């Protein structure tokens, strides 16, 4: 879906064609769901939070500044919803994170032994990742899980470009330190 077409869809939703909103949901459900999933570690919570994000975006669509990128606006809503959820549910047991992840690799060329070793490392990585503070975790998710640009991260998180870069790498550095403990 091109940017111009996306704006046309938003306009038609604003004019009352609600069904067009399904196109927007289809396009962005994976990144929004994954943001919620990586932050909470629970599929059920992620599904609820992602749904809440799309509903809130629909309700506030009239306030969307059409000169901005829709994805960053939607992602900001999603991030705020996830932050509020995490504030409410402070205590999530760490052991869940090692089990609750889809480890299927994009690299299909690995042998079964290598694949097993890699999965164990990824499990450990996931536990280390979830031991980060929420602020650092969200930046690592945006940059490395979702591969957003630092400009997008800065816009979504409200940080300056340099602060976004610095904190993201601080998060990554902490993961590295904890992996080596």
């Amino acid at each position: 879906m091109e940017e111009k077409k996306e704006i046309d869809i938003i306009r038609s939703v604003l004019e009352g064609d609600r069904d067009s909103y399904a196109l927007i949901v289809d396009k962005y459900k994976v990144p929004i769901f994954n943001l919620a999933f990586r932050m909470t570690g629970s599929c059920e919570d992620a599904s609820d939070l992602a749904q809440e994000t799309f509903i809130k975006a629909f309700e506030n669509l009239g306030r969307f500044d059409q000169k901005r990128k829709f994805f960053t606006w939607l992602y900001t809503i999603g991030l705020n919803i996830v932050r509020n959820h995490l504030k409410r549910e402070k205590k999530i047991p760490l052991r869940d994170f090692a089990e609750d992840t889809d480890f299927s690799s994009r690299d299909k060329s690995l042998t079964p032994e290598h694949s097993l070793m890699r999965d164990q490392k990824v499990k450990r990585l996931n536990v280390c990742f979830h031991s980060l503070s929420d602020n650092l975790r969200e930046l690592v998710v945006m940059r490395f899980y979702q591969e957003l640009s630092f400009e997008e991260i800065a816009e979504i998180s409200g940080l300056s470009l340099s602060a976004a870069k610095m904190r993201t790498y601080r998060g990554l550095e902490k993961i590295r330190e904890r992996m080596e403990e």
Partner: protein
Amino acid sequence: MSRTEGCNLSVSVTFCLAGCILSRDLIYGIVEWKRKLKTKLYIDMIKGISPVQPPDDFTDRVMLKVGLCPSRYGAAKRIHDLLTRPRDLKGFRLLPESITKGQCGFYFILVSLFYLAVGMVFLRSLETISTTGYQAIWLLYQPEFSFAIAIGFAFTGISFISGQPVSVRSARFGIYLYVAAIVINSLILQIDMKLPIVILALLPLTIGSVIIGGFLAYATERYYCNAS
């Protein structure tokens, strides 16, 4: 020790020192290189994890809920959206790119103190006017008007500083109300005092107050953009 031996010794010491520095830098370089390599490994590992797919009926569930949302795009909703939409103020650099709720609250408290002072001045000045039997009734309410603004902004400032979730919304509403009240108050004063010359005093005061309102709105938007 002969002069040649001394010279040789100093050359050897210099080489030793240079060697130490080089080997220290080399070791540091190797450690740094290994650290970067490991970090790169973790980045690749994270990037290699497949994204999790949402449930198959995800879009249907969202659309079902969207269908239950009330139709909100009437005239009232459009006006509400127009007034409350965050503005792109990137080209305007009166304040820093992002300001905290504490800073934003501080601006409101400052304006509150300003109106408190204005109210006190009015109170003191009108004591003499009221004894002369002056007929402009609306003028006599100016201290109360200033105190009401001071109290309103003080509450807004405190709610910002204490991090109340309604503060951005209430601040916006308060600023619109403030600007409208200032303009209406000036018009009533002008009509009530029946002196054309009054406009010369009222106009700069009104413009100044509207600029204060604009500054507060700008600070609120900056905070809002930062917070969201």
